[in-house]
């Protein structure tokens, strides 16, 4: 009967209601084990029915079919689990762009019980020069004790592949590299050794299941000794025509035989791993290149800003030079002819003071002009390594006559053996001259100023000390403020210009008046070229 009721079959239990309407399934799944059915068949066999003789054969065949079906069902379940695992693995590999992350996922998948369940795995990768297949990473226990410890830990944690890979990456990746360092070194082989079994697997693009490794003529004995196992699997990692590396996996602890089935499953897994490794590697290189491009772009921007700044400076320089030329000649004519006239004017002539005043004013204006032109020159910084003591001596030498006229003496305390400073000579010389003349202007006759050099941490300190004059904070600020009311014509711009020049050159400039008296002007001159970059930044 196709359709029966529940009370007509005692073998059917709860949840098997579907079988009530399927005679075929009912016969295969229930009747063969049903005592009533066996009794009925026995009765039928004893009857005179001519078909009774073939019933035992039919029953035996049916039992075989059922066993096969159960085996196939088990196989199918295993495959479904494998596909599910490969799907999970594939998702993890596809979503990762980090090389270490990809490696962690791959190596975890090979050794995890819920993955391929191998005891140990090694990854060898071809180097950038394509000269060697180098041992890169090993995963697994070193001995049985460690193995049981790891497996117990994994069994209790019940983590997913993703979680296990993450845990591996953060807490084990580095230590595993160290742990297997010696083995990884020994597994490294030159790619030119064509007959080596590793290279053969790569060249033939197929996995090799090595058995009887210690007596296998195809296997270098040193490989078997390094691994210490008789059986292992070599899985090439290839993407397109690119030979990325290979994975060696074994069961060094359990010695479970590696089956062809294991090899086929691993082969399915090798392709996405290869692809993910290539992609992660390319992404890593892309990031490096992007970093270079970003840095180059930044540098270009800085250079553009520098060019714009230099053009502005060049314009300022041209205008200044033009003005200077236009002014210097008339000044020279006015002052020069007045001096000529003075030669013939007696000392007691009432016109003499007026002529002398013209001469003095012309000279004063010429000094202003010199100052402006010096500043104009300083707009074109040309830094180089200079001996600061020589710079000080030369600048003071130039001012010697001027200082003597004012009755000011200059004492130099220059430290020996100082490193050269990386500065624009003209700029620093101009600023030192500016500071010295400013200090000299404040000093009374027979005054003394001290110039000292010494080594600081990353610079050379150049100090000009006025031992007698103390300045308040307001006075110090006014000193470096352009057109301050306290300054006279000709020196009003000196200190502000010095401050601006030094700021642009990133040279720290400090004016300090300690409570015990006096004022110290300090320039910290760089001794390395690194300062130049900061200097350019500060100007932009």
């Amino acid at each position: 009967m196709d359709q029966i009721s529940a009370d007509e079959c005692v073998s059917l239990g709860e949840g098997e209601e579907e079988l009530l309407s399927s005679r075929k399934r009912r016969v295969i799944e229930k009747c063969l084990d049903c005592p009533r059915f066996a009794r009925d068949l026995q009765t039928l066999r004893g009857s005179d029915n001519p078909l009774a003789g073939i019933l035992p054969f039919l029953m035996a065949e049916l039992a075989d079919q059922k066993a096969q079906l159960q085996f196939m069902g088990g196989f199918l379940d295993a495959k479904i689990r494998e596909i599910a695992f490969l799907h999970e693995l594939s998702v993890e590999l596809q979503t990762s762009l980090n090389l270490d992350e990809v490696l962690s996922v791959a190596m975890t998948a090979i050794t995890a019980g819920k993955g391929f369940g191998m005891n140990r795995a090694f990854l060898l990768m071809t180097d950038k020069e394509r000269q060697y297949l180098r041992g890169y990473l090993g995963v697994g226990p070193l001995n049985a004790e460690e193995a049981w410890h790891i497996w117990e830990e994994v069994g209790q944690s019940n983590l997913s592949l993703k979680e296990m890979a993450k845990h591996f990456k953060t807490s084990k990746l580095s230590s595993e590299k160290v742990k297997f360092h010696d083995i990884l070194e020994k597994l490294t082989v030159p790619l030119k050794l064509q007959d080596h079994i590793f290279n053969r697997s790569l060249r033939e693009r197929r996995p090799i299941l090595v058995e009887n490794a210690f007596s296998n003529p195809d296997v270098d004995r040193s490989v078997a000794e390094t691994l210490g196992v008789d059986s292992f699997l070599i899985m090439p990692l290839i993407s397109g025509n690119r030979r990325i590396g290979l994975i060696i996996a074994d069961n060094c602890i359990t010695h479970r035989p590696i089956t062809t089935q294991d090899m086929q499953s691993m082969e399915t897994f090798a392709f996405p791993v290869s692809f993910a490794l290539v992609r992660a590697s390319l992404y890593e290189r892309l990031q490096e290149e992007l970093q270079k491009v970003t840095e180059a772009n930044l540098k270009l921007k800085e250079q553009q800003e520098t060019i714009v700044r230099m053009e502005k400076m060049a314009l300022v320089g041209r205008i200044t030079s033009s003005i200077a030329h236009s002014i210097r000649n008339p000044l020279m004519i006015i002052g020069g002819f007045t001096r000529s006239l003075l030669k013939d004017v007696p000392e007691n002539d009432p016109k003499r003071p007026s002529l002398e005043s013209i001469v003095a004013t012309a000279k004063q204006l010429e000094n202003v002009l010199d100052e402006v032109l010096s500043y104009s020159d300083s707009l074109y910084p040309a830094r180089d390594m200079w001996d600061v003591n020589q710079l000080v001596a030369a600048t003071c030498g130039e001012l010697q006559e001027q200082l003597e006229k004012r009755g000011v003496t200059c004492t130099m305390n220059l430290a020996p053996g100082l490193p050269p400073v990386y500065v624009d000579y003209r700029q620093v010389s101009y600023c030192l001259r500016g500071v010295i003349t400013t200090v000299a202007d404040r000093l009374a006759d027979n005054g003394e100023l001290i110039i000292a050099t010494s080594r600081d941490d990353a610079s050379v300190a150049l100090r000009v000390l006025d031992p007698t004059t103390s300045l308040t904070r307001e006075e110090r600020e006014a000193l470096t403020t352009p057109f301050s009311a306290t300054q006279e014509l000709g020196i009003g711009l000196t200190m502000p210009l010095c401050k601006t020049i030094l700021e642009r050159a990133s040279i720290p400039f400090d004016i300090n008046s300690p409570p015990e008296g006096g004022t110290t002007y300090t320039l910290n001159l760089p001794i390395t070229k690194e300062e130049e970059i900061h200097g350019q930044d500060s100007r932009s």
Partner: protein
Amino acid sequence: MARILVVDDESSIRLLYTEELTDDGHVVTAVATATEAVDKLREADFDLVLLDIKLKNESGLDLLQTIVKERHDIPVILSTAFSFYKDDFSAWLADGYVVKSSNLQELKDEIERVLAKKKRP
């Protein structure tokens, strides 16, 4: 006493130099252009040339090169409103360099120095 050729496009400066140097006992010839200067150098002998670098539409440095080529026995002092020409290689051909100033003492000292140097064998 020396024969000095002054080359400057500014007439007042030519006059100032002429008066001052004549007072000091020199014989001064003053011209405004490079062409005039070359002509004068071919016509007469001079002990020294006092040369402005920025001549009207001409370069004193080009004239300096011509003088060095044709009359390398005559020393040249450059007189200019610009101090930065000191760093110009072309200016290094000159025997002296003076930045223009209302106080001509520096110029006079330089003339004496160059003439004294010329006299030495």
